[in-house]
C-alpha cells in the first residue's frame, strides 16, 4: 500500500505506520476483487475458503461468493503474522489453489507457511514485486486461476520468492534476496517475468546443462553447488539429495555435505581444489551476493575465478534483455576480479560469452 505515497513497500510496523500517516490506502482489496471477478463462472462449482474481513472475506462476498471463513482473530490492522496464520490454515484445509494478494513481503509470508506444499498464485497488489509468483495484472491472474481450477492450465512451475531489504532500500541500496521457491500454475502470457518458453523447454535445457556439468566433473575436486532450480537438476541427475535454497558440496559425484555455511565450505575445501557451480537469479542477473551469501568473498577468493562455472538457461539469459550479469559480493576487490566475460553454460556443449559487471 505504500507505493503511491512514495514508500517502497509497507513491510514492518514502522513503515506501515508511515504509509498510513502519509495517506496511503490499502490497494489489495480492490485489486483482489478485480482478480476474483474473473472466477465468476465457477461460482457454483468451487468452495472459496478465506480469511476474515479485508483479508479475503469482503472481496469474496463483493464478487458474489459465499465463502467459508476461517475463524481467527484479525481485528483492525493485519500483520505478516496474520498472513502466515491464514496460509497455514489453507494448508490444513488442503485447498487446490491459494490465491493471495500482495507484494514480495506477502509472498515471503506465504512461503514461510506453505513452502512447496500448496499451489499458490499472487495477485500483484504490492509495491515491490521482484518475485516470479505473480500474475501480470489482477485480471490475468484471475484468468490463470480460472484456467488452473478448470484443469486447463496443467503445468506447474517453481518460481522464485524474492524480496528487497526495505531498510537498505530506504538508504539507496537495492539488495534483492532469494528467499525460496513457491509452486505456481503456468500458462503463457499470464505470469510476470520475461521467460517466454514453457516449463518443459526450460526443463529440457536444464537437463542439458546438468549433463554438460556432470560430464566435465573432475575426480577429487569439490563442487560447490549453489542455490537454484538450474543447479538442482545437476543434483537430481546425480541422484543426490540437495537443498534448493542452500549450498551443497559434491565430490566424485557423491554428496559430501548439504546446506553449508561459509565456514563449513571453507573448512571443507581448505587446501583442496574446488569449483563453484552457480546460476544467476532470473530477471535480475545477480551471480553473487543475493541468496547465496554463503559464497562469501573469502570463499570466492579461495576457489578462484577460473574455477567458477556459471550455468543459466537461454531463457534466463534472455530475461536479462541484454543487461550484464552482476556481482555484489560485498568486497570491491572480489567484485572487480569477477568482472568481465564468463562463458556461461547454456546447454549441452553450448556456452554464451556473457559480461559480468559490479
Amino acid at each position: 500500500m505504500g507505493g503511491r505515497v512514495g514508500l517502497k513497500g509497507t513491510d514492518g510496523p514502522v513503515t506501515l505506520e508511515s504509509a498510513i500517516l502519509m495517506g496511503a490506502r490499502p490497494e489489495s482489496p480492490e485489486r483482489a476483487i478485480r482478480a476474483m471477478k474473473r472466477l465468476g463462472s465457477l461460482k457454483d462449482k468451487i468452495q472459496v475458503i478465506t480469511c476474515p474481513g479485508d483479508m479475503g472475506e469482503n472481496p469474496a462476498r463483493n464478487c458474489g461468493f459465499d465463502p467459508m471463513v476461517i475463524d481467527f482473530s484479525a481485528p483492525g490492522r493485519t500483520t505478516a503474522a496474520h498472513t502466515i496464520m491464514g496460509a497455514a490454515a489453507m494448508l490444513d484445509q488442503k485447498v487446490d489453489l491459494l490465491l493471495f494478494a500482495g507484494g514480495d513481503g506477502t509472498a515471503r509470508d506465504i512461503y514461510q507457511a506453505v513452502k512447496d506444499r500448496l499451489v499458490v498464485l499472487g495477485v500483484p497488489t504490492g509495491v515491490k514485486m521482484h518475485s516470479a509468483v505473480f500474475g501480470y495484472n489482477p485480471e490475468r491472474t484471475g484468468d490463470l486461476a480460472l484456467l488452473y481450477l478448470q484443469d486447463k492450465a496443467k503445468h506447474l512451475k517453481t518460481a522464485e520468492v524474492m524480496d528487497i531489504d526495505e531498510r537498505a532500500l530506504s538508504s539507496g541500496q537495492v539488495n534483492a534476496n532469494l528467499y525460496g521457491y513457491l509452486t505456481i500454475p503456468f500458462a503463457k502470457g499470464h505470469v510476470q517475468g520475461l521467460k517466454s518458453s514453457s516449463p518443459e523447454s526450460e526443463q529440457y535445457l536444464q537437463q542439458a546443462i546438468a549433463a554438460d556439468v556432470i560430464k566435465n566433473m573432475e575426480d577429487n575436486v569439490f563442487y560447490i553447488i549453489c542455490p537454484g532450480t538450474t543447479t538442482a537438476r545437476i543434483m537430481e541427475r546425480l541422484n543426490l539429495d540437495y537443498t534448493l535454497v542452500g549450498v551443497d558440496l559434491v565430490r566424485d559425484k557423491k554428496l559430501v555435505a548439504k546446506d553449508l555455511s561459509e565456514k563449513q565450505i571453507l573448512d571443507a575445501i581448505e587446501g583442496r581444489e574446488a569449483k563453484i557451480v552457480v546460476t544467476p537469479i532470473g530477471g535480475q542477473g545477480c551471480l553473487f551476493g543475493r541468496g547465496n551469501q554463503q559464497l562469501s568473498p573469502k570463499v570466492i577468493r579461495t576457489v578462484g575465478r577460473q574455477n567458477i562455472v556459471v550455468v543459466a538457461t537461454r531463457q534466463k539469459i534472455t530475461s536479462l534483455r541484454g543487461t550484464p550479469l552482476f556481482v555484489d559480493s560485498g568486497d570491491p576487490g572480489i567484485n572487480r576480479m569477477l568482472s568481465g566475460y564468463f562463458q556461461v553454460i547454456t546447454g549441452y556443449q553450448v556456452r554464451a560469452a556473457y559480461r559480468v559487471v559490479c
Partner: protein
Amino acid sequence: MSMNKKTKLRKFHQAKWDEPIIFELGEKGERGIQMPVVEKAIEAEIGDGISKLPTSIVRKRPPALPEIGQMQVLKHYLRMSQENLGADLNVDIGQGTCTMKYNPKINEQFAASHQFADLHPLQDESTIQGMLEIMYKTEHFLKEISGLDAFTFQPGGGSQAILGMATIVEKYHEAKGERGKRDEIITTIFSHPSDYAAAAVKGYKIINIYQDENGIPDLAALKAAVSDRTAALFITNPEDTGIYNPKIAKFVKIVHEAGGLCGYDQANANGILGITRAKEANFDLTFFNLHKTFSSPHGSGGPACGALGVTNELARFLPVPVVRFDGETYSLDYGLPDSIGKIRCFYGSMSAVLKAYAWMMSLGDEGLKEVARIAVLNNNYLLKKILQIRGTSAPYAEGKHRIEQVRFSWEDLEKETGVSTFDVTCRMADFGFHMWSSHHPFVISEPFTIEPTESYSKNELDEYVAGLQQVSDEAYETPEIVKTAPHNSVIHRPKDDTLEDPLKWAMTWRAYLKKCALGQRKRI
C-alpha cells in the same frame, strides 16, 4: 490512430475439409494402380523380378502403405492444398528469414522439361555437357558474387551447407595437426540457428555471442571467447534482425589471429547481392541458398540447394566431384585427395541449380543489384508503415534503416491487451495472410519477422500492413476476436505444451502409432 486503413482488406474464407491423413483413408485391398503383366521377353530375361534378389534385401512383409484409389488420392491432395496458404496464393512476407520471392514459372518448366528431367546422374559425362556447363557457369556467377574461389552444389540446403563448412573446418585443422585441440565454434545469437546446430552435430562446442545495445554482436565478447581452441566463427550478416554488422571485417580478423577460420552464412544475402562480398571481409567459407535468394522455391517447395564456397586455400577439401572445363569439354573431377567426401549423393539438387542459373541469366549483374536495392527499399517502406501501428516496435538500431528484413515485436501490444504474437498470427490467417510467430531463439519478446523481398508489389505490401493494422485495432478494442481466432481459416491453435515437448511430437505416421502404443500420447 489507423494510418494504414486506406487499403481495404479482402473478404476471405478458406475451404475446410476436415480431411483425414492419407493413412486413415481407403480400405484394405483398395488399389490405385494395377501393374501391367510383364512382357514375355522381359520375363525371360529377369524372371519374376523378385526371386533373383538377394534374400537380405527382400522384405519379409509388405510395406504398410495406404491402400487407396487414384481418384481418392487426387481429391485428398487437392483438399489439402486448399487448407494451406501456399507461396503462390498469399502475401508471404510474414515468413521472415525465408526470403519468400516469386519463383518464375518458366524456370519450373525448364526443370520439368524432358531435356532436364530425363537426365540420369550415372550418364556418361559426354552426354551431359549441357548440364555440366550450367553447373560450371552457375559456380562462376557465385564466385563473382562472393569473391571466393570454388563452389560445390552438393549440400541439400543451408543447414547441410553449414554442416559442410564445419566438416571442412575440421579437415583443415586436422591437416594442421590441431583437430583435437580446436573444438569450439563461435556464432552469434541472431545468426541462423543452424550455424549453431550443424556445428554441434559435428561435435563442436558452441559459444554464442549476444548482441550489444545497438543490436550488433558484442565485439568485446568475441575477443573474450576466442582462444587456441577456436576452430571457426560461423556468422550471418545481416543477422535476422536485418541489422548489418559494420564491424564484420574486425570479427574475421580477431578469429584469424586466433588461428580459426571464418564461415559466412549468406542466408540473408538478398539485400546485399552485388553490394558487399565475403571476399572483402576476408571470409574463408560461405554459402548461398539457391532456393531462397536465387529464386528456386524455398524449403518444402524446393528442392533446396546450399551452394557452398571456399577460398583457394580450402578448395582441396571440397566434396567431389567438382566440375572442370578445359576450354572445350566439361568434366567431373573426383581427384581431390583431401576432399571431405560426399555430403550428398551425386552432385546435389540440379533442378535448383538450373532454376538459379536461369534466374541469374535473366537478370544480369545489374539486375541482381536491382533485386537487392528493391528488397531493401520494400523492407524500409514496411518498417516505417508497421511502426505506425499501435503495439509494434522494432528493437535495436532505432531510427536506422535495416537491410532486407526486420524482427519486430508485439511486446507492447501483448502488455497492453494480452494479445500475443501467436494470437496475431492466428487472426492474420483470417485475412488470407501467412504470418509466423518467429523466432528461435526468442531474444526479442513477442517477435514477428517481416521480409518483403523484391517480388511483392506496393499494393500487396499495403494490403499486408492493413491486415496488421486491423488486428492491432481489434486487439485494443475487441481483443476476444483476436484471442479466439482463426474464424475464417482452417488452422488450429496448437498448444504450446504439445509443440515444445518432444515426447508429444510425431514426425511420421509410424512414430505416431508407436507413441500411441507406448502410451505417450492419445490416439486421435
